[in-house]
């Protein structure tokens, strides 16, 4: 039952916040999110399938449109659970990071935050497509409010663009999901939206062409959410304008909804569609990596820079996903978690600077290490994690994504042939250099160098009274857990990798055969393909 508690706790706290006084709101939200974290931790401890794959708990309950197979079915596998843990880990920190930044409409802010938490958890924990969609889509509303009320000067357009763009994409996702459900009904005779059933049906019963369109439909939504290269236009604005807490959640978790969607739905549901599009999406991923790195290079706004870098980083995830082999997928999942941690933390760091100086302009800030050494320490750690320094978490995902893409060849001896070519990875790996370039330039501008502060002593003038020059205890307490997590994952990623592995295999279960067939169609015969498959293709 704890899974329901996990969903209810944020909602209950939101209700309590609505009834409480504005001053108490932040503490209630914090306690509520910590309670959710504890619940999730208990849930994770109870979770029996860490190493074996599979969903838990496996209950079908609470029909909403029961006769159409829409049930509120809650269950996680280890990948979902990792993202759930990421969510409940980041949310209290984002809330605590907002304590001093949010001074108006506090009740609303924290209430929306808790609702956001609930809807993210629903999206990650749902085993029903429609409820996944409910959570996935409903995150827009709280985020819309968070940006619109507490955002920067351009918050209006940012929020609207964010909302419409993602909404536009997700209606196609919904249409594709419904299409699969309808086809399932047509051929099986019962309605269901259970992910497992639909995945099984779709991947085996739909024709090539249908799978292709299902895949395209699903990807339209996920590509915008992730965001993939040409559909990223909402992101810089939204990240830039959102309040710190919002940016943290947006970059840390909401973007993962897109890649989680690809992982959980698009890839397993439509393998034949996926292999057709693999090259296309992999190239989009590479473009995102390189293009966005170059764009980051010329940014002067730190927050925008990190926002653009998110697109670039998600490019690695895309590449890892479309490597279609266990390394790439494991890398992609790791990258999701790690990007959530490091980019979320970077946004927190920038928020702390913004609270003190009221600017995010790199030309106005500089040499902060001499004034804020503690802050600089964290900033450096998280930047290096973003750069992908081995030993920190960013490296694990990045390296595996690239390696996955590198080995995604048709004659891969590991039993997982791919559609790509090593050159994809090599070109994408240029992103390692460019990534180091823009992030270190950023560090060089704001952390190192001689002290530059916005005209006059803006620090004393604007800063909230309670904030000291360097970070206070609360802020350190917000950043330190993330830093510890970064280091821990970087040095000992094995448990996570082990946990992801069975899920990854589950996703890829249909792929080797499909890819062999697809490659054979292109004239690339896999010499290591199992014999019976070769016979079948003949």
């Amino acid at each position, binding site marked *: 039952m704890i899974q329901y508690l996990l969903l209810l706790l944020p909602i209950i706290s939101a209700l309590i916040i609505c009834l409480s006084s504005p001053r108490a709101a932040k503490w209630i939200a914090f306690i509520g999110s910590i309670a959710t974290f504890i619940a999730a931790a208990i849930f994770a401890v109870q979770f029996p399938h860490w190493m074996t794959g599979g969903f838990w708990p496996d209950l079908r309950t609470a029909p909403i449109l029961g006769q159409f197979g829409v049930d509120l079915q809650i269950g996680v596998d280890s990948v979902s659970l990792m993202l759930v843990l990421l969510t409940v880990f980041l949310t209290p920190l984002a809330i605590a990071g907002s304590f001093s930044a949010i001074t108006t409409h506090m009740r609303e802010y924290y209430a929306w935050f808790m609702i956001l938490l609930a809807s993210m958890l629903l999206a990650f924990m749902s085993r029903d497509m429609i409820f996944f969609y409910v959570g996935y889509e409903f995150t827009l509303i709280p985020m819309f409010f968070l940006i619109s009320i507490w955002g920067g000067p351009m918050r209006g357009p940012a929020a609207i*663009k964010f909302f*419409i*763009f993602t909404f536009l994409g997700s209606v196609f996702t919904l249409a594709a999901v419904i299409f699969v459900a309808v086809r399932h009904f047509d051929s099986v005779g019962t309605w269901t939206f259970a992910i497992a059933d639909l995945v099984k049906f779709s991947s085996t019963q739909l024709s090539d062409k249908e799978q292709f369109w299902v895949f395209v439909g699903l990807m339209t939504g996920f590509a915008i959410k992730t965001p993939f290269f*040409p559909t*990223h*236009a*909402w992101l810089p604005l939204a990240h830039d304008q959102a309040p710190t807490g919002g940016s943290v959640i947006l970059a840390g978790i909401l973007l993962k909804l897109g890649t989680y969607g690809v992982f959980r739905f698009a890839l397993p549901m439509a393998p034949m569609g996926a292999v057709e599009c693999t090259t296309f999406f992999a190239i989009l991923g590479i473009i995102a990596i390189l*293009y966005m790195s*170059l*764009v980051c*290079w*010329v940014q002067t706004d730190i927050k925008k820079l990190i926002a653009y870098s998110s697109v670039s980083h998600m490019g690695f995830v895309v590449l890892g996903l479309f490597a279609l082999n*266990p*390394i790439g997928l494991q890398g992609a999942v790791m990258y999701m978690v790690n990007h959530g941690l490091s980019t979320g933390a970077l946004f927190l760091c920038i928020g702390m600077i913004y609270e003190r100086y009221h600017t995010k302009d790199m030309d106005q800030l500089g*040499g902060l*290490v*001499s004034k804020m*050494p503690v802050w600089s*320490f964290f900033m450096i750690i998280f930047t*290096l994690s973003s750069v992908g*320094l*081995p*030993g920190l978490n960013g*490296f*694990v995902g990045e*390296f*595996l994504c*690239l*390696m996955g893409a*590198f*080995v995604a060849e048709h004659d*891969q*001896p*590991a*039993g*997982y042939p791919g559609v790509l070519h*090593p050159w994809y*990875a*090599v070109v994408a*790996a*240029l992103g*390692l*250099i*460019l990534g*180091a370039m823009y992030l*270190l330039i950023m*560090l*060089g501008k704001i*952390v*190192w*160098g*001689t002290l530059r502060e916005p005209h006059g002593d803006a620090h004393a003038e604007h800063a909230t009274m309670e904030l000291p020059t360097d970070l206070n205890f609360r802020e350190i307490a917000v950043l330190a857990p993330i830093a510890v997590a970064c280091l821990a994952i970087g*040095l000992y*990623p*094995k448990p996570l*990798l*082990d946990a992801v*592995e069975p899920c*990854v*295999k589950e996703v890829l279960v249909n792929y080797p055969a499909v890819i062999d067939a697809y490659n054979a169609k292109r004239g690339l015969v896999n010499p290591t393909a199992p014999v019976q498959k070769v016979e079948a293709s003949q």
Partner: protein
Amino acid sequence: MMSLLCTSDTHSSAHAVVTAIVNAIPSPELSWTGWILSLPAISVVLTGLCCALRVKGKLPGWITVLALAGSFALVLKLYFLRGDAGAPVVVHLWDWMNFSWGDQSKWHSLQADVSVYVDSLTLFWLLFVTGLGTLIAIYATEYMESDVGKGYSRFFNGVSVFILAMCTLVMADNLLLLYLGWEGVGLASYLLIGYYYKKPAAVAAGKKAFIVNRIGDLGLAVGIWLIWVNYGSIEFNTLFQVWQDTERGVGGFDKSLIPYCLMLGAFGKSAQLPLYVWLPDAMEGPTPVSALIHAATMVTAGVYLIARTYPLFALHPDALATVAWVGGLTALFAATIGMAQYDFKRVFAYSTISQLGYMFMGLGVGTTFGAAYHTLTHAFFKALLFLTAGAIMHGFAGQLDLRKLSGLRKVPGFKIVSWTMLIGCLWLSAFPFSAGMLSKDLILVQALSINNHGFVWLGWIGLITAAMTAYYSFRVWFRVCAGPVFYVAGEDNHDDHDAHDHAHAAHPAPAAHAKHEFHPHAPRWAMNGVLLIIMLGAFATGIPGYMELRGQSNWAQVMIAHSSAFAGSVQAHVTDAVNFGMNPHQLVEVFGTIASLGGIAIAMYFHLLQRKSADKLRAWLLAHNSIRWIPVAMENKWYVDELYHACIRGPAWIAGHILHFTDKHVVDGLMVNGVGRIPSALGGLFQPLYNGVLQGYATTMAGGSALVVAWIVYRWLVSGAAS
């Protein structure tokens, strides 16, 4: 266990050829070797704490020294336990990026644990890394004392990070862990070069080092992927067994690319020809850092990498030839620049690049022992040189211009510095019977003995470079330490936290009235002591060379010979090749001596005896349009930085701006906002229809209905025609 470790009976033969690499023994009982890594790690944590707690005092320095000394002691323990020629051991510490799908066999798993692979090569490197590291840390406790309470903890934190990463790199049991150390030393280098973070040049240099290294790292990363794809594993122990088998080791384009990829990584880290540009700039860091990281240890990581994967390189002679030629050309190229620099720390930096070139040449022509031995000797004499340079900087408020310092050996307190510097210079210029000469000769002899890939030419290039090396090293010594006493203080002290206020209070003596008010402060016991110890070390490093020269077995040779680095290295038959009636040994001895002494003599003439003539020569060169480009280009480092800027950074920067513009106005503006405007535009298109006039509506409704009817009739006609 001892029996396993001390199985060597090859001490008797100097040139024992190791034909097979012994399979490593998993040795969990040696898990204490993990402390070689843990001690610096603890030091990282403790110095970090000192940083956070703003400890005022030299505590962090001593913590680091103790930790490094502890590591060194452990390395010694391991060395004595294991002997020169023990079989390699693998000690598994904990799982890292280690996972499998299917089974644990090749290609079905990626085994990249945090585990240690110790063979003689590892130990060879570990010895001087931890040893020199300890010494330099001691030196730094005094050198950095003006930063106590400010950046002192940060500095030692960086040093600890560096030693940790370097030990990881050297002890790694797989390529991925090596990559971790590889990037880790890059990080330490970044942090320490940018130590004086208020100096824009220092920040830029740190950035440049990291980014240029990243280019090399990319090569290493691709190399790792290729190795995994082709051999199904990235563990050295497994790989060595594969590589020994030529059948499995070579074949195919992919496999032949691997050494080139690794080479790129090595060239990046070890500052070889296309990627050397970061190293001179790295001299912005504190001098102990230059000594430790950018002269003695980190830059030899590339040499280590190639030595470590030598069985693979041995399968690809062309790749080895490339290594040799790149090394040789780098040696020459860097020497030309070194001759024309006025900043003597930069001169040493270019000399480092040049010497690293020799090491690569040695690897390329097949004498891994020569390369490794040169690494060892170079580590000592170059550390010595940098530390003396540091002492001078420390004493003269950061003065590095060799035109503004003179006759230091007569300045009180700088005696030890001057004479140890002389030793360093002699060793660097391969003065006869110095360790530097012994190690360099090993390489040149091998180059001249093998008539492959034009290696003989390489040998001659090496000899010419030797002459140039002698010239520029003694150019420094004669200018700075010899001659009449004369000095101008530097612009300021080490930039520290309170920048100029502090600097002015402490040394209110920039150039203008330096002569009257400036008093150089001489190094004290820690610096002098370390200089002397390292000088002794530099002498000691000559011992294996002598033994080698006399055909005796020696520990260095045995260690290299019993490691993977020796497998496949070419044993030249020195006596076969004849030039000028001499065999290569004699040739190198003769011409090497001539080059060394000649270079010193020229330097003596221009920079000690007739200092004015140097200026005259320069003026004469500049006066002739046809040749003036030579000194100008040399002084400007052949404009390589500018070239890179124009060819790579500039275009990328412009591309960034163009793409940003595109993103803003095309992707976002035209595509997204444009598409976003379509609905409203369409709405505007239909707006005139809602004009508010009753008849208008009626007409539109009727017209719309008529259109619908027309549509049906059309569909009907179409379907009628179809059927």
